[in-house]
């Protein structure tokens, strides 16, 4: 992996005495290539390598007896730093019913994640979640969430045809308020960040139900476009966090670094499979070495 490559690059140098900026540049080039291969965004990589270079030119590497090891340590630390070393627990501190709204591109895993979240909150957090199917466009989307709700024994709002998503969410909140549901999870339709009409729809839903948490659901295998997508969704909705799905594949997951770097918003969960128990709380270590390669 990259650690071996970097050690080799910087070990060769030891024989000739002190490290030079040229040696560091060579090592940085390895890091850059690895991150680009991991799908980290081109500009995010440039910024990241820049900040690593600043540290690498300091004494901790230049005067170290094992510069290769020191360099790898810095890169790893900087990566953890950007990904978010703070706790990224889901913030549910709000008067019930606490609304959680899931948004994102088509097919990213919102409906499945909504159900996973409901299961997680019910089974491990002793909550009583209410699932709301607010996707009126995709064929059988409402059925899909109802089936999943049935599988985990969670109540689901009976979305009717002919009602717009904002009204659906508003009515569902009313029902939740009157019943014992302390969490409401809104599953929205997948949409393009450049579809103004549908982005406005999201804003309308938000203004109607003021969800306490708006989570962007993003696919771990997303490429360079992760920056465009997350920036747009964040600008429109001021997201509270991100769920990175399909982490059970072998995508390096560089999109995680891109998204965190450009939005500053924390990654909260990983989706790690198709089953409804496949949801893990985010931990930067879990993805840092994977991205670095």
């Amino acid at each position, binding site marked *: 992996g990259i650690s071996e490559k970097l050690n080799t690059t910087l070990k060769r140098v030891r024989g000739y005495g002190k490290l030079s900026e040229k040696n560091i540049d060579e090592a940085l080039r390895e890091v850059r*290539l690895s991150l*680009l*291969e*991991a*799908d980290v*965004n*081109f500009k995010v990589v440039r910024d990241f390598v820049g900040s690593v270079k600043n540290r690498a030119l300091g004494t901790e590497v230049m005067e170290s007896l094992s510069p290769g090891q020191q360099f790898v340590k810095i890169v790893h630390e900087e990566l953890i730093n950007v990904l978010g070393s703070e706790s990224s627990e889901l913030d549910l501190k709000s008067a019930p019913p606490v609304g959680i709204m899931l948004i994102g*591109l*088509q*097919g*990213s*895993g919102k409906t499945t994640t909504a159900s996973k979240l409901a299961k997680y909150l019910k089974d491990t957090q002793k909550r009583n979640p209410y699932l709301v199917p607010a996707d009126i*466009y*995709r*064929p*059988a*989307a409402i*059925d*899909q969430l109802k*089936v*999943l709700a049935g*599988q985990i024994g969670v109540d689901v709002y009976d979305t009717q045809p002919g009602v717009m998503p904002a009204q659906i969410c508003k009515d569902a909140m009313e029902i939740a308020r009157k019943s014992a549901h302390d969490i409401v999870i809104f599953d929205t339709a997948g949409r*393009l*960040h*450049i579809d103004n009409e549908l982005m406005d729809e999201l804003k309308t839903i938000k203004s109607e139900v003021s969800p306490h948490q708006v989570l962007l659901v993003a*696919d771990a*295998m*997303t*490429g*360079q*476009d992760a920056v*465009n*997508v997350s920036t747009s969704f964040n600008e429109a909705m001021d997201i509270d966090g991100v769920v990175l799905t*399909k982490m*059970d*594949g*072998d*995508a*390096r997951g*560089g*999109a995680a670094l891109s998204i965190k770097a450009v939005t500053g918003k924390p990654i909260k969960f990983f989706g790690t499979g*198709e089953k409804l128990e496949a949801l893990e709380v985010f931990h930067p270590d879990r993805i840092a070495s994977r991205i670095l390669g």
Partner: protein
Amino acid sequence: MLSKKEIDEGTWDDFEETLIMSDLGVTTTMKLRERLETKLAKKSLEDEETIEQALKEEILEILKGAQGTPIKAVSQPFVIMVAGVNGVGKTTTIGKLAHKLKQEDNNVMVAAGDTFRAAAMEQLEVWSKRVGTEFLRGESGRDPSSVAFDAVKAAISKKIGILIIDTAGRLHTKDNLMEELKKMKRVVGRELEGAPHETLLVLDATTGQNAIQQAKMFNEALDITGIVLTKLDGTAKGGVIIAIADELNIPVKYIGIGESLSDLREFNAEEFVEALFY
């Protein structure tokens, strides 16, 4: 002394940014640079317009090398299997493809081979009704291969022109699920010689370098005859298909440009290459 012809770093930086940001990937981008430095005269390597034009031609050459033909039913029933990882647009693409083929006067049947995911068969049934095709569903939880088997039998007895089989999304890293696909292909081939006549891999244009691994693994398992690249109506460029054409010789046959029935187009390499440089 002959000095090595090289594009000046500063000039290349902009091109590298464009290509990488279009998801061509580091390897393909470096390869393209090397080819240009070999083919172009030293003088040309200093001119940005010449470089851009040469890049487009080079990419086009790679894509033409993996040229595909649009789907034509050359036997009856003509069987198409559709596969790919989760959420890329298989089921929607089948609706669109069925619509297109029906407009070309084919008698189409779609089979709901995803017996696993919640409401997957209902989803395909809605598309089938909208298009007006025959529809065959499996029971939930049933072996997908037996659904494919029934579908081929039904297509033969009902004199169907084209049968399209939907499959559940699956990550290429899951061996048992890839085995399930191989088994479906074997079962279909045993029931009808030469079937499936087309095996399409659906790729999402927003996917990064992992698309290459997806293509490799699905190709090893099923011998992919063509790719459908979906969600090109977004801002992603889908540049990974260049590496896939180069390394695996698999052509893109169609592109998905939206969520309605008419949002499927035959792949046009020239238009695709032009769009990379907007």
